[in-house]
Structures are given as structure tokens and as C-alpha cells.
């Protein structure tokens, strides 16, 4: 494990170059150019707004401004998570010619998928900062939690990216399963709604570590309150556990990649 991490550091140039390749290809020769980075988040945000509007019609309460911001704040990390997982799941297969021909740590493929989407996340995130600045929302000191929460989200994403890319190599139908889970996963994750709407049932929803992290991010950015320590710990265990566990599995399976692909 430590050996693998050292080797990965040795190959960090490759990781960055592959990420650069993905970004370059996506923004090259596509009419939408940099709009790509915000295309998916915008779609998620708009559908979130539609759902919120429906809530407000049913409940008879008008939509509050912070609610809208909160949909945007939760949509971006979700788009990052879902996008990374989707790309990473196929990353070893789409690069099979490299996997079977040249040696280097295979982790660079799922990791570069995550980095590529992190780049998109950063682009969309800076737009969000502008939006928040104009909205007059007062961001408090609790925002200092944000780096930690993002780190946990990245670790969680990277862990699942590693595991699923490796699993797809051995079982081809994993990618279809992932596709379906990612499509409907947004309904099981508090993106369009808040867990508080579910009263005592909210704990069931918080079992999903992505949901826990999204709620915590919403807490620190929009509501300016500290995240719930118990659920924060829960998410941290998930994130670290997934990351380390997945990397161990990946490392164990790596020697047979070339003959199993």
C-alpha cells in the first residue's frame, strides 16, 4: 500500500498528463467548450428548482432564496461525485490498449477521472462563489469546515472510483449497474430536498455517506452552522475506509489486470 502510493507519486506526471488529456479533449472541438464544466451541474440545479417549486406549490409556502442557493450548493458536489464515478468505472476498459501494453500504476486511470471532474467542479464552484456573492447570503465562520468536507468527498469518490474501475474489469455488467444506480441515486440522496423534511426518517437517508456530506456542506455554507459531529465522523469513516479498502483491493487485483481485461 505504501509502496503503491510511492510509486504513484513517482508517476504523478503521468496522472496530470492523463487528466490534462481528458480535459483537453473535452474542451477541444466541442461546440460547448468550457460550458461542458457547468452543463451537468446546471441541469441538476434546474431539475432541483423544478422539484422545489413543486414542494412550494404543495405546501403553499413560497420558495426561500436560501433554499435555491442550497440546491445549487448540493448539486455541484453531487455532479462531481456522479460524473467521477461514471467516468472512472469505464476508465480501465477505455484505456485497455495501455493496460495490456505498457507498465505503470493502473491507479492513474480512475484517479485521473476523478481529477478531471474535480477540474469541472472547480470551474462550476467559482461560478457558485460569484452567485453567492451577488445573492447577499452571509457566509459565516463555519465555512472553515468546507475544506475538510471536500477532502472527505474526494476520498470517498476516489475510493469508489478505484473499486468500480477494477470491478468492471472482471465483471462487465458492473458498468450497467453503476449507470442505473447513478441515475436514480440522486433520488436517494438529499440533493433536491433536505433530510429534515423526513423528520425521524432522516437517519435512514443519512446512512448514505454522500448524503451525509452534502448535508454537512449545506450546513456550513448556507446555514452557517457546524456539522453534526456524529454524522461527520460517520462520513469520515466511510471516506477513509472506502479509500484505503478500495486501494488495497485494487492493488491485490492489479497483477492480473492485463490477462483479465
Amino acid at each position, binding site marked *: 500500500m505504501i509502496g503503491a502510493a510511492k510509486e504513484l507519486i513517482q508517476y504523478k*506526471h*503521468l496522472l496530470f*498528463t*492523463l487528466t490534462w*488529456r481528458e480535459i*483537453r*479533449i473535452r474542451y*477541444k*472541438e466541442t461546440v460547448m467548450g468550457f460550458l461542458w464544466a457547468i452543463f451537468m451541474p446546471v441541469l441538476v440545479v434546474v431539475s432541483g428548482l423544478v422539484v422545489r417549486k413543486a414542494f412550494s406549490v404543495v405546501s403553499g409556502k413560497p420558495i426561500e432564496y436560501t433554499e435555491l442557493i442550497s440546491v445549487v450548493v448540493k448539486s455541484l458536489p453531487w455532479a462531481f461525485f456522479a460524473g467521477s464515478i461514471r467516468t472512472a468505472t469505464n476508465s480501465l476498459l477505455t484505456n485497455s*490498449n*495501455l*493496460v*495490456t*501494453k*505498457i*507498465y*505503470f500504476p493502473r491507479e492513474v486511470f480512475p484517479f485521473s477521472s476523478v481529477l478531471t471532474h474535480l477540474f469541472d467542479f472547480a470551474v462550476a464552484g467559482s461560478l457558485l462563489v460569484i452567485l453567492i456573492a451577488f445573492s447577499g447570503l452571509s457566509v459565516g465562520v463555519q465555512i472553515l469546515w468546507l475544506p475538510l468536507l471536500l477532502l472527505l468527498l474526494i476520498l470517498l469518490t476516489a475510493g469508489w472510483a478505484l473499486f468500480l474501475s477494477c470491478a468492471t474489469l*472482471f*465483471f*462487465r*455488467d*458492473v458498468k450497467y*449497474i453503476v449507470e442505473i444506480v447513478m441515475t436514480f441515486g440522486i433520488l436517494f440522496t438529499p440533493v433536491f430536498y433536505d433530510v429534515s423534511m423526513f423528520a425521524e426518517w432522516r437517519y435512514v437517508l443519512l446512512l448514505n455517506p454522500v448524503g451525509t456530506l452534502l448535508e454537512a456542506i449545506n450546513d456550513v455554507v448556507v446555514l452557517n452552522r457546524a456539522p453534526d459531529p456524529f454524522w461527520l465522523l460517520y462520513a469520515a469513516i466511510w471516506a477513509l475506509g472506502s479509500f484505503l479498502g478500495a486501494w488495497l483491493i485494487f492493488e491485490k487485483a492489479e*497483477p*492480473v489486470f*492485463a*490477462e*483479465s481485461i
Partner: protein
Amino acid sequence: MSSVALEFDGVWKKFRKGERYDSLRDLIPATIKQVLSRNHRDELKAREFWALKDVSFQIKRGEAVGVIGFNGSGKSTTLKLLSGILKATRGKVNVNGKLSALIEVAAGFHPDLTGRENIYLNGTILGMRKPEIDRKLEEIVDFSGLEEFIDTPVKRYSSGMYARLGFSVAAHVDPDILLVDEVLSVGDMSFQQRCIDKMKEKIRSDVAVIFISHNLPAVANLCNRAIFLNRGNLVLDGPCETAIQAYVEAMGSWDSRANSEDRIRITDAQFSIGGRQKHSTMKPHTPCELAVVFECESRLPPFNVGFTVRRTQDMSYCYATTTQELGHPLFELLPGERLAVLFQFNAHLARGHYRLDLTVRDPKGVEVLLAANGVTSFSVDEQVTSHGPADLALKANILNPDVHDKTARRMQGTDFCETQ
């Protein structure tokens, strides 16, 4: 650093034949079935086979070693084990130093990126750093001969251009160990020559090169040593010529296995050099004779006899023709009938070992009725060093003697080495 760059120590590698359960949809029912019946395990085990069996060798720095063998003999497996893509089932693979593999050199290319961007991409995949690529960029572009198209996306390249760019990048990596798998077949003649020169340059600069190829002349030309693999066994590890000869002999036994179904056979073949039999060494230009008797076993279509001379050192063609091309009509034999042919030729051949093949062929059906590979073999011995199979009996006469004297004087006392 020790001078041993690569070491294979009793390496075994197992593969599985046939289909594997590669989806959960297939695996889950199969597992349930297996648990219930408990008999399916052995069936799966039986489909495993050894791609390499107890292979050991060492390669030192500055050495170039060729790996030859038939398809499926374990050559590429050897290479993939060395590069770390595959792991040995048993035994040890030791690699000492930075290793770079020229296997499918354009594997890392992305069609949407330009040639220049792909140089950076592929260079990084092959282990170069950006500053290093910056420094070598011009040289790489020069080598590829693609200056004009370097800012064009590679999807617009022809396959030759694609492969050339790939090789050019790979050729500029500075490894301690270079693995090459059948990549010299890219590009036109002049590009191939440039590749061979580049590899020779690497060998001189103390890089260990391991070269896998079916191109025997290239192996003989580049390598100091060759390893002959056959069905996963290391048959021979020695000088190129010996290994190639062993390969050639195995090849002969491969396609002319005494076949009871042959409809025609050779009952007698007498080879004589300068009128003497049972001799196999001669000077260039010696007249030779080969007397052959064919006997027809069962009904045959009309046929001709092909006559081929190959140099066994690299199996290159020296001469080939057929009785038909020599102006003879097609032969027709009834079962039991015989055909006696006397071939006469002068061996205008350079120093080396040669093999003579006879082929009985039905030109209409394009069917080979009999392949008598290595019906005889002989050696040509000559003092003069030359390259290529033909002996032109070349002499260089100096027409103005003063130049000759001057050159001879200047050379005295300097350590002038003969260059090839």
C-alpha cells in the same frame, strides 16, 4: 549497479484457455451451480496451460538479445513479464534499471490531439518528464519526418505516419533496458533503417536490448545473442546463428512432418559439389548438382517443382524459381510412376550456410503437394567479408596510385579502425 540488467530465474507462467465468467450475470448462477454439485472445479482447471515452462536467462547491459520462436511460443509473454504487465506464476523476474518497452508504440495516442500534444502524452506514458520532452521535441519531430503535420490531430494521419510518430517518441526515451516487440516493421525502408541505426546507437551506449521479431535478418543484424523459445520452453540460448539455425530446423520439422497422406514423395536426392558427393562446403561460384527422384503415390494434378535457396542465418531468400518458370511444361505422373530431375547451378553466394528447399506444387489449385524443406544444405566459405547473400567477386582497383600511397602514409601510426 550490477551489470546484469535482466534476469529470468526459473519462470513459469500459466494462462487459462477458453471463456471466463466475466459478468455477474454469468458468475452468480455458475457459483450456485458449483456449490450445489461440487464437480465443476476440475473442468475449469483442465483448461489451464503453461505459456512458459521453467525459463531462465540473463541479459547484461550493452547486450542485445533476440527472442525468436513460432507464434504462441511465449515470446510476447516473456516481454510482458519483463515489463511488469504480467506477473510470473512461479519463479523470479529481476529487472535492474529503468525499463522502457517499445510495444505498440502508438498505444497511448489519442486521435483528437495533435501530433505535438501526443508527443507529450506518449512521452509521459513512456516515463519521460516534461522538461525532457521539451528538450527533445525538435529531435523527435525531425526523426519522425512529420514536421508539416505536427499540429494536425493524429486522427488525420495515415497508419504509417501514426506508427512513425509513435516510434519516434519511444526511440527518444533513455532507458537502461529496452524491450522491442516487432515494431521495426513500421514505415518505409528509409525509416526502418533509421530505426535500426537508433537501436544500434542504444546498444553502443550500454543499454540492454531485448528484441522480439520474426524478422530473422533483423535479429541477426542487431543482436549478439538469441534465445529460441518453442512452446514455452527455452530450447537454445546462444549466438544468433546457432539459435536461428535451431529455429530453422524446428521450422523444417514443423511443416514437412513425414506425412503418410503425401501423394508424392522423394525417394532419392543426391547433392554434389564440383562433382564430389558427401561434401557440404565449397568456395563461391562452384558448380553444384542436385539429382532428385520423385515417386507418385496416388493420383496427382499436373505439377511443377519449385527450387529455393535460403540463407539459414536469417532465412532470407537468395534464389527461387520453378521448373515452370524455367520453361518446362507441367509434369503429370500416374501412381507408381517416377520423375527424375537434375538441377544444376553455380553457387554465386557469399560466405554462409544455405538451405535448399524443393516444393511440389499444383499451380492451378495453388496447392502444395510436397514441401521438402532442407532437402539439402551446404556452406560457402570465403575469406573476403561481405554482406548480403550474393557474391559478386567484387574487387576495388585504385586507378591513381599516388592517392593510395598518400593514404597509406597518413594511416601509419594512427589507430585507424576498419569501419563496416
